[in-house]
């Protein structure tokens, strides 16, 4: 038994879950900041970013060390590769949270207007995708991960609808352009969060089943 190696894999997983918790919290806070227009919450998002970035580097280093020192095989190799990719996606989720918080701060400089887009609903859908993808990772549940993939289309559709609704608003009420543009970017950020959740779910499937389902691939096994 390679006890030390398998303990290290457990530590790597725990560290990634800490990273996941921070990224998920950042996106939740940015959504809360949008909903309440509370700039102090934006500050919390900004302040969480260095910790996420630091963890990203630490996790990459741990994964690199395990690859170099332990020469993992099969499911362990797939696990470490998945952790490296999920780590990058979580860092990007953190970046999206920061982007949203920046837009919320921008919006604070303008009068509050009623926008024809349901950002909280889009946010809820994207956050659910992230939560489910991470749950699938925690439980090594490829079926749950597959359910995340099916949600991506809905988020994309909501983002497209937001784009058309806000484009029309800009044409019809140009004085609301700054608010509409900020909302447009936030919708785009949330759509990207959904994409990262999709990537995480694909990595869970790769880890658990050894199947590469990226880009809709269903035919070629990863290994």
């Amino acid at each position, binding site marked *: 038994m*390679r006890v030390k190696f*398998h303990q290290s894999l457990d530590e790597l997983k725990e560290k990634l879950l800490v990273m996941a918790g921070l990224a998920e919290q950042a996106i939740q806070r940015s959504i809360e900041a949008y909903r309440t227009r509370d700039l102090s919450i934006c500050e919390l998002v900004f302040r969480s970013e260095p910790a996420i970035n630091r963890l990203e580097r630490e996790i990459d280093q741990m994964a690199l060390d395990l690859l170099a020192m332990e*020469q993992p*095989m*099969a499911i*362990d*190799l*797939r696990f470490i590769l998945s952790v490296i990719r999920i780590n990058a996606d979580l860092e990007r989720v953190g970046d999206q949270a920061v982007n949203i918080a920046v837009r919320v701060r921008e919006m604070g400089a303008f009068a509050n207007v009623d926008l024809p887009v349901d950002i909280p609903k889009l946010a809820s859908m994207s956050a659910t995708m992230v939560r489910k993808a991470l749950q699938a990772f925690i439980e090594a549940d490829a079926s749950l991960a597959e359910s995340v993939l099916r949600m991506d289309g809905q988020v994309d559709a909501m983002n497209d609808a937001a784009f058309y609704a806000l484009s029309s608003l800009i044409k019809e009420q140009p004085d609301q352009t700054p608010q509409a543009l900020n909302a447009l970017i936030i919708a785009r950020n949330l759509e990207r969060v959904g994409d990262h959740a999709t990537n995480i779910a694909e990595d869970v499937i790769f880890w658990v089943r050894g199947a590469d389902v990226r880009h809709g691939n269903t035919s070629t096994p*990863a*290994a």
Partner: protein
Amino acid sequence: MGVGIQVEHLNAWYGSTHTLQDINLHIPANHATALIGPSGCGKSTFVRCLNRMHETNPIARAEGVVKMGDIDVYKDASPVEIRRRVGMVFQRPNPFPTMSIYDNVVSGLKLNGFRNRRVLDETVERSLRQAALWEEVKDDLKKKSGASLSGGQQQRMCIARALAVDPEVLLMDEPASALDPVSTSKIEDLIFQLKSQYTIVIVTHNMQQAARVAENTGFFLNGKLVEFDSTHKIFTNPRDKRTEDYITGRFG
């Protein structure tokens, strides 16, 4: 050129111990095939059955079919003939200590009655070149004994000795396990080059080595062939849980 090896219902015993149980597999020609598994799993017994070395032990016996190309190893040829067709390299280099490098390399040929000096000279150069040792020893062929070479050089000399009789198959039983990383790397490079001319079967405990040199890998456990597949499949996504447990170190 190498030949493919077809193994059907191969069983082997040491006394009453059933060490190989109903092994069936096809080893393709001109490929390197790795056999992995824990100590005592039967992988070395398996390769010793391929060249009928298993039966040199008085309490050992084997049953089943082993075909090398068109030849049924247990029916169509004598053990001596089979061992000429099937070269073998062992874990520790085993030079004849009192013989020169030259005589070590041609010892198999001489045993088979070859005496023509020109043929022997050509064979020594060809074999040592194939074993990537020629440049290092060409000036000392008859001056130095085989045992005076370094461990890595001795092992390559033993490979040259195996190649000198122009075999079709080369069996290697942990050929690099007693060697340093540089010598190991030379042996692995050699395997890569030799498989265009020979069918190579390599037993190894070093799974990274199996992954590096072999196109196909078989996993043995308790005398059974648990899984045989492309090396890529075995080391990234094996079908059998026992294979995965072994290669990920979750065994025992």
